């Protein structure tokens, strides 16, 4: 799985923004507003990966969270990306 479009993610201070770049700027007319966690996950999805790999990355970074917490959070977010047409499986 990976993001459908090539995004550049910018740290705007209080929030993060992702804008499509290169030829994808003409395919996706809009932008994404994110927080630190969603920006972090999107970074992992720029290249082809698997839910298991992203889960392992998050588990390492958010080590105080349980596997179930991370899994539940990740699945919900991936579903949201699919719903928005932003993720390709």
């Amino acid at each position, binding site marked *: 799985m990976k993001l459908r479009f090539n995004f550049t993610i910018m740290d705007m201070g209080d929030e993060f923004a992702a804008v499509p*770049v290169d030829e994808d700027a003409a395919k996706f007319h809009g932008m*994404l507003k994110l927080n630190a966690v*969603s920006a972090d996950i999107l970074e992992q999805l720029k290249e082809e990966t698997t839910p298991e790999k992203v889960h392992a990355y*998050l588990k390492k970074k958010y080590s105080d969270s349980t596997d179930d917490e991370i899994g539940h959070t990740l699945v919900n977010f991936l579903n949201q990306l699919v719903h*928005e047409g932003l993720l390709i499986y």
Partner: protein
Amino acid sequence: MRISNPELKVIRFASDDVIASSALLGPLSGQTGLFYIPAGDFGGSYSGTGNYVQFNGTLGSYSGGAYEITGIYGATAGVDGDKANLDSIQHGQVYMADVGITLPATVFESIAQQTYDAFSYGNGKYYTNGTSYYESHWQ
């Protein structure tokens, strides 16, 4: 550290025509904030050596497909922000953090010139016809 809820807000624009309409852009006049213009080829990362210009300013009136930008200050650019990359801005987008929207840079092409001029002269003022455009580079 515990994971928190990942937030996602998708902002879509219907078409370039809608984006360029004065009905949408007009209410933004008078907004003051940070303007960010990525210039085409980023090489994969915003931080570091990306080609961009960023500056503070105030949106003035909308006329002829472009805004007037006043009160420009604090302009910065990527290390490769020279004329060739300013030319490529037309393929990028303009993100206005203050109002949280992104617009195609084609609408704002004149901003690149104004920002470049302001930055080249280094006095915080903007010039609509900077003669140093083809001579100066970002500093």
